[in-house]
């Protein structure tokens, strides 16, 4: 017995709240620039699934187990590193087609 109303409601609620949110923006940025868009999709989907699984499973306990400010700080550093990595090699990348190893 599946409660289709509840299933649909949770789908629509989460879908709308995620549209244009930072994880989707990150998926656009990484998916377009990475050599492995499939890895970006699987990584994003798995991360979101695990995060919401923990939300259902741990409920209120998540905030105590993982302090949000720390966790977000580490994530911010991760995005910063990935962003700088994309911006850094501009000069050598412009001539990439000519360069042979």
């Amino acid at each position, binding site marked *: 017995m599946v409660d289709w109303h509840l299933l649909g409601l949770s789908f629509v609620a989460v879908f709308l709240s995620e549209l244009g*949110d930072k994880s989707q923006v990150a998926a656009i940025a990484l998916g377009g620039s990475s*050599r492995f868009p499939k890895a970006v999709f699987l990584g994003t989907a798995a991360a979101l699934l695990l*995060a919401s699984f923990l939300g259902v499973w741990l409920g209120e306990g998540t905030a105590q187990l993982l302090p949000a*400010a720390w966790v977000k700080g*580490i994530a911010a550093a991760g995005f910063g590193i990935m962003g700088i990595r994309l911006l850094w*090699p501009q000069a050598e990348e412009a001539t990439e087609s000519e360069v042979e*190893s």
Partner: protein
Amino acid sequence: MKFAAAVIPTTVLSSDSTTHPAQNPTATTRETALEAEAPTSEVVQEPTSLQQKSGENTNAGFWRVFFSTFGTIFLAEIGDKTQVTTLLMSAESHSPWTVFAGAGSALIATSLLGVLLGQWLSKRIKPATLDRAAGVTLLVIMGWLVWDIGGF
């Protein structure tokens, strides 16, 4: 859990579009090859042929991209509004697994849409321009997260 376990492995095995190493001699030496050119639409039919053609480096690159994406997105999402929504709904209803199935499929859909949009853009924008835009976007997300922390 059954839901997540059923979705992910089949997607891994179904098909794999990667840039052929021959077109991209420098890419194998790079860590994440984020600066590589836009992927071709070449489809590798069997999962084993990926290893035979591209060797260890492509495989390692795939998993490096997977884990760096997974790690940052997971940490960014923990305690965020998706989770709040999920939490509220599972608290109100007595069937948290139905809520999880709905939320989970929505999250898969939004990440698929995001990556597909990125792919669509990568076919229309020069790789160098796209990388610059993507780099700036990621730095904006970093600012977004720092702003979130400040709001606590």
